[in-house]
């Protein structure tokens, strides 16, 4: 992960120093440390962009804007969270972090925020005030690093702030730049699974309690641990069964669990891929920039409503007629939605229920799925089938062999192959392609009633669409048939459980481990209540144990 990180970070910081006329500053970029005698870093996960935003908002307030683009992270094994563990920060990525950090800290010290966020007034704004700076870093530092700071760490920040303040004759510039350095420290950008000797069980290891608090918080709230959780880590209660259960209950009982559910399903459904999605406006004029965001929001609201508000059965996500729409989304789907919002006001999200038998029911028929897994100009039965297999059923589909021509599939103007079904049948005539396409196409073809922008259609190029599909030898027809087939497939519930574990830890679970099987049993017993799944994972020792080596290497293959 960060073998080269410190070196590159030094370069970034060194680039700042001449600007402020300081030859060398005490660095916040030390190797990861812990309050306890950490012995081993088992894993490290970079904060996702959303986690970064949540964290900054929780520490400094909602009014601090995050400006700039984070370095994109490629999903690994279908999960951004695994990619956050396995990817390196590039030089440009580090520069992006630096720019974002300085944007944040400039706001923290600006006249609008400083009175609220810096709880002391310097003796003079024209120079250093170590006492005030110490007070600030002693308070903010543990929130940023999610653990107590060592005396050296505090002193380093105070010293750096003082040197800059002296040079620039500005106390707040010192705080600004010294704080910015904390925000590009691995201690802030990464969350670690550090193992330490377990005093209660000599010869065994346990997870550092602050790291445990951090993992719990990002898993169940998608943000930095709050003071109660840090207190539980400090007091040691988090290392007890009762203490852990108490915190898990508290976190899951909070409305903020919805943030984590949204983040988890955004990851599981591959929504980061929307950044690369575009549609041919001439063919799909209804696919506006607003639709890109609203399609994701529709699905996330549908999920939160069922999973969090109703404690529903996860499988019902595939068949539920209940969703939320804006007028724009309703127009895309060709259904009426009455919004009496005043003219010119933002469109509201309103609950909407499809009538029985409507092909739109369930998240597979929503634009967030049908749009995301289709290229610009046409639908893709293969892409949708692959996504369904990989993202939602955790089946691995091999990549296409090299030198395969996709011309037949892409040519939607062939008068003899008017539908995707016909084109794919031709493509599968190549035996090299047939094997894998057999796993994907029968699923995606059931969604062919939805074009690349997610609009409903009954014909393609004037030819009627045959939406017959097949999953595991079971044949069905259309989106409703597909949704029911996925509902009935045990792979769907197994997969969401594995993905939830990966969202927490950054690696897929050891499925043969008895502790994992216990988690799954609890999920089944809860009638596939996702919050109960999260609870079972959060309360399991498996989450706080070092991963099996092959769990980490599998993701790198």
């Amino acid at each position, binding site marked *: 992960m960060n073998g080269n990180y410190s070196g590159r970070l030094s370069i970034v910081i060194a680039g700042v120093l001449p600007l402020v006329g300081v030859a060398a500053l005490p660095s916040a970029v030390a190797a990861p440390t812990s309050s306890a005698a950490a012995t081993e870093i088992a894993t490290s996960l970079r904060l996702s962009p959303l986690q970064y935003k949540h964290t900054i908002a929780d520490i400094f307030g909602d009014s601090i804007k995050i400006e700039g683009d984070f370095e994109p992270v490629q999903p690994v094994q279908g999960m951004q969270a695994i990619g956050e563990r396995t990817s390196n920060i590039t030089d440009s990525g580090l520069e992006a972090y630096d720019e974002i950090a300085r944007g944040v800290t400039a706001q923290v010290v600006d006249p609008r925020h400083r009175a609220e966020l810096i709880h002391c007034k310097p003796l003079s704004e024209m120079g250093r005030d170590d006492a005030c700076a110490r007070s600030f870093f002693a308070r903010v530092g543990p929130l940023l690093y999610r653990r107590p700071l060592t005396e050296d760490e505090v002193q380093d920040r105070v010293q750096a702030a003082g040197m800059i303040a002296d040079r620039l004759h500005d106390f707040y510039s010192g705080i600004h730049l010294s704080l910015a350095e904390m925000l590009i420290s691995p201690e802030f950008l990464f969350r670690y699974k550090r193992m330490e000797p377990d005093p209660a069980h000599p010869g065994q290891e346990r997870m550092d309690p602050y790291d445990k608090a951090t993992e719990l918080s990002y898993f169940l709230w998608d943000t930095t641990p709050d003071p109660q959780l840090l207190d539980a880590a400090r007091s040691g209660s988090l290392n007890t069964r009762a203490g852990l259960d108490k915190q898990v209950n508290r976190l899951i009982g909070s409305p903020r669990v919805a943030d984590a559910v949204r983040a988890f399903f955004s990851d599981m459904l591959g929504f980061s891929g929307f950044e690369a999605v575009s*549609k041919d*406006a*001439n063919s*799909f*004029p*209804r*696919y*506006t*920039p607003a639709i890109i965001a609203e399609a994701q929001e529709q699905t996330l*609201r549908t999920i939160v*409503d069922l999973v969090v508000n109703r404690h529903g059965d996860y499988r019902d996500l595939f068949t539920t007629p*209940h969703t*939320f729409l804006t*007028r*724009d989304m*309703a*127009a*895309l789907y*060709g*259904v*009426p*939605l*009455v*919004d*009496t*919002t*005043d*003219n*010119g006001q*933002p469109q*509201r*999200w*309103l*609950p*909407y*229920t*499809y*009538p*029985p*038998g*409507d092909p739109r029911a369930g998240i597979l028929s929503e634009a967030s799925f049908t749009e995301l897994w289709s290229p610009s100009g046409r639908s893709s039965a293969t892409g949708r089938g692959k996504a369904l297999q990989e993202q939602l059923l955790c089946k691995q589909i091999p990549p296409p062999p090299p030198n395969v021509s996709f011309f037949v599939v892409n040519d939607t103007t062939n008068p003899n192959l008017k539908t995707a079904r016909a084109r794919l049948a031709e493509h599968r005539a190549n035996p090299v392609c047939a094997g894998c396409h057999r796993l994907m196409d029968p699923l995606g073809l059931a969604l062919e009633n939805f074009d690349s922008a997610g*609009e*409903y*259609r*009954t*014909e393609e190029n004037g030819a009627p669409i045959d939406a017959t599909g097949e999953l595991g030898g079971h044949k069905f027809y259309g989106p409703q048939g597909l949704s029911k087939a996925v509902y009935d497939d045990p792979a769907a519930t197994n997969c969401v459980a594995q993905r939830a574990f990966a969202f927490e830890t950054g690696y897929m679970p050891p499925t043969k481990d008895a502790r994992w099987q216990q988690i799954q049993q609890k999920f089944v017993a809860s009638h596939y209540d996702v919050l109960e799944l999260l609870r079972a994972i959060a309360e399991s020792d498996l989450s706080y144990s070092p991963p099996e080596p092959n769990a980490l290497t599998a993701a790198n293959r």
Partner: protein
Amino acid sequence: MGRPCVVLTQGMQALRQDRLEPRLYKKCGVRTMKRDLMLSCAAMRRRCGLAPAVIAALSAIVSLAGYCAPASAETRGYVISWFATATNNPDWAVNCPEAAKDPKNRDFTEHMEPDGFGDKALVNGKPAPPLDYPDALTIDPDVEAVVGKYAYGFDLGGREADKFIDPETHQKVDDQLWRAVGCTQNFRMTPPAMPYLEGQAWTAGYADNAPAWTMQISGADLNKDGPVTVTLDRALSHLERDALGGFRSDVTYVIDPSLRSHNVLTGEIKNGVLWVKSGSLWMEGTLPWYLQVDLQDTHMRMRSEPGGDLQGYWGGYTDWHIWAYMYTSRCIVADCVGTYRSLEKLADYDPDPVTGKNRKISVTWRMEAMPAFLATVDGKIVAPALSAALGGKLQPSWLPTGPTVASDGDARTGTKGGATR
């Protein structure tokens, strides 16, 4: 609240045009009604003390069908997505030979210049700005009138000498407004381009901000010839754009319960074209576009395009002062004074009993409408969209079955939910 009553609807329209029988005014208390008050038929009966049969008779008298009428077998919803003065510019030189020789002649703002008509308007014997006092201009700006034979429109019974030939119907038609303005640069446009000033106001200000106009078409079977009812209203929200900058079909618009822009017209579909020839029309607009659109002796013809849109023309007599106000209120790149005087000169209807000058002018507007779901504020879908995007036909399950508004919960399912932002 029940459906608004056709009598009241007509009352409001007539009130605007000073045509309502004074006794009915008084009896119904129309004078005291607030602008956006809507009465049910039952309330109308109570307030006016009228028997249902009387209300029905009054409805017949004003020759319009309305909400009190039995529901038609089929209703389709639309939203007006293009509306501007109809132009016809196949050959500029034929239409306007003088302007063709010198395109800059009489355009723009020369009449405000010192060497123009700046000193030719007199008020109480003193020079006055002609833009502020166009009636006080002492000379005729003599804006060239269209002399070409063709213009879109309807036969309103005007003077034979003023007739154009409609390029589509080949009928003799009246459109003196086009004759008055068609030789100015602003109108040297061909659809889909709008006349310059109208297009600028529509694009830059109106369409994305002002409430849209809605249209319901009802009939026994709209795929066949037969009588229809056309109901026009104003929506609560503006048009929605698509990715190409056009407007989106199949959006749901809530009809403004105010009766100000509520119009019910009767017509028929003949050979696939919807014709309307009845009554008057008044629609509220918003500056800098039309503040209002009014028509007397309303005529319409509209046909369905392959994608489900409607395209056609509305015509009749309009108050030329109101049209001129729309046009001259933003007097840029236009001979506003000249146009004003030209409209005054060519107005062809409704002479003022005192001055003898015509107060109205024959006009034709070109319009387009696209399929839209229309709903009332209580959440009832009153007209479904029927666009090509829906395969040209409604999914049976998507037919309106009841309220879908969900401000306090999902009325369709009874589930709690509530609107969220």
